[in-house]
């Protein structure tokens, strides 16, 4: 595959490489740079066309992050909800993922498809249906409601990753522990959890980020009382008004952990886990 006739010429390769990297930079990196600039725009002066670079910079918008109540609230909410969702997913995903990998044999394909269904369903459908139900239950516009709603779309990811990790644990190892006298609890505590831990960590990271970024369900269930960062961003990008400076700040706050996660994933987690777990954003 690497010996395409066109590309034996090293100069052509360099040309192609620089073209591609240039394009990638333009499409993936430049927008982030622009965002950083927007976040640093001096609110007194603004940044209007035809200026390609803001004329004056300030940290006022960043200070607003903590000063403006709704921004501080959204930050607090997101950072409270995400760990709860992650823990819930770990607690629910571990037994389910293990059962899928080791206990259900020929029903596995059907169950795996079932587990993926919340991710495949259109988000609005889940959101409005769940939202309406929560309204009747009094869970709408509560943190609990948002946590539950987010767990529904983030849990499938965790389950798939746990199942994939359990596949990598040789059945013989688990069986030998049983022969040596380990009952179900000892087996889980001493053998399965330690060996599945890498998957749990990877899944936990992805769940955390998934929760931070989740929009549709949080929006429909939480609006307007419980606001998460993505919901706030939506408001600033035109959902409610158009405040690019604030939007830029929220974007960066949302992006920093996720970009770090990307680097970590690229280094640590295997390619197959990513392709197996990802369905929707």
């Amino acid at each position: 595959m690497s010996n395409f006739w066109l590309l034996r010429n090293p100069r052509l390769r360099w040309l192609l490489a620089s073209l591609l990297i240039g394009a990638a930079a333009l499409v993936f990196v430049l927008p982030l740079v622009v965002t950083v600039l927007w976040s640093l725009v001096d609110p007194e002066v603004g940044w209007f066309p035809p200026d390609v670079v803001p004329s004056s910079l300030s940290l006022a918008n960043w200070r607003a992050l903590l000063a403006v109540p709704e921004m501080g609230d959204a930050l607090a909410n997101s950072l409270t909800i995400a760990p709860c969702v992650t823990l819930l997913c770990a607690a629910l995903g571990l037994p389910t993922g293990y059962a899928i990998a080791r206990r259900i044999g020929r029903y596995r394909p059907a169950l795996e498809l079932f587990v993926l269904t919340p991710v495949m369903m259109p988000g609005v459908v889940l959101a409005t249906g769940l939202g309406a139900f929560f309204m009747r239950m009094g869970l709408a516009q509560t943190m609990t409601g948002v946590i539950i709603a987010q767990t529904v779309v983030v849990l499938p990811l965790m389950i798939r990753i746990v199942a994939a990790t359990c596949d990598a644990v040789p059945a013989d190892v688990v069986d030998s522990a049983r022969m040596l006298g380990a009952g179900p609890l000892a087996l889980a505590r001493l053998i399965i959890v330690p060996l599945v831990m890498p998957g749990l960590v990877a899944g936990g990271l992805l769940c955390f980020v998934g929760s931070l970024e989740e929009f549709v369900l949080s929006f429909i269930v939480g609006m307007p009382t419980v606001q998460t960062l993505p919901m706030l961003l939506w408001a600033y990008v035109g959902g409610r008004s158009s405040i690019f400076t604030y939007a830029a700040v929220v974007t960066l706050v949302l992006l920093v952990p996720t970009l770090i996660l990307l680097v970590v994933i690229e280094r640590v987690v295997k390619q197959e886990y990513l392709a197996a777990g990802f369905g929707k954003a």
Partner: protein
Amino acid sequence: MLTLRGLRKSYGPHLAVDGVDLEVRRGEFVTLLGPSGCGKSTVLRLIAGLLDADAGDVAIDGASVTAVPPHRRHIGLVFQSYALFPHMTVGENIAFGLRMQHLPKAVIAERVAEALRMVELSALDRRYPRELSGGQQQRVALARAVVTQPKLLLLDEPLSNLDARLRDRLRVELRELQRRLGVTTLYVTHDQIEALALSDRIAVMHAGRIIEEGDPETVYRRPRNRLTAEFLGIANLLPARIVSVNGRSCLAATALGEIELPLQSGLRPGGEAVICLRPEDIQLQSAVASALRATVGETAYLGSLTEHLVTIGPERQSLRVHVPGRSRFRAGDTVNLVLPEAPVLICDEASP
């Protein structure tokens, strides 16, 4: 001490174990020998409780264990893949079973040290399994299984993943260990040399059933079954038709001409049977006018013996013959065959 009665297990349409009965006495070393897919590993897992039988019973010391979960059966199991816990050191691996028995720490430490000495791996107790060689891992697996002093030791082709030399060495060590500990052992393998070398008794399995049982010499020298003969060592199977019966012997027509054989029950004139000749039982002599004349074909020098493929008779049936050391015969030579006095006769009717 171990009794299997009527064990049956299917995987969907495939019947893996089809009515297995077996008795193993205390301290005995019994091998389940058979080709891949014959169900021997399945039997082992049924005994261990890792699989549930569709029918039949497993009893240890007279009491049925069918309802007992595997972690309470107190059985040691050594896997082909060693199955060491990758996240624990060698010492922790061996200690695991003792921990599950809730023994005091001092006792555990002592027993682990003793087990390590027994398999000569004392220096490696802090290492992780991935740092060990195959042979070392297998020894750890063995130590881990026996340190809990199980009533029954099961071994599932433990030497298959090792190279030939290591296999030989570990085989000897295994036998010594078992003798020293005196633990009742059930061993599963497809390697007939292991079966012959290690066992007090061999049970030959085929297609989910035990087709023959006996001590190694009996099973090897006097197989009652065509499949057994073919599986254990090299067997020259000569079709024979009984011509006449005369007191305690009979005359059989074969490709080698008419041979006199000791009579076995069930043989009648006109009946069909198979003569089983082991390659080392046939001797070659320089050709002299005789009925048992053969031509030497492909010859291979195998170090401790020479193997000749000799062809006999008008149908050019070939037999494999082993001559110790270097043979004086070469391909193309004409030789005489000297058959053993009492060749083994297998009646096809008896073969399942």
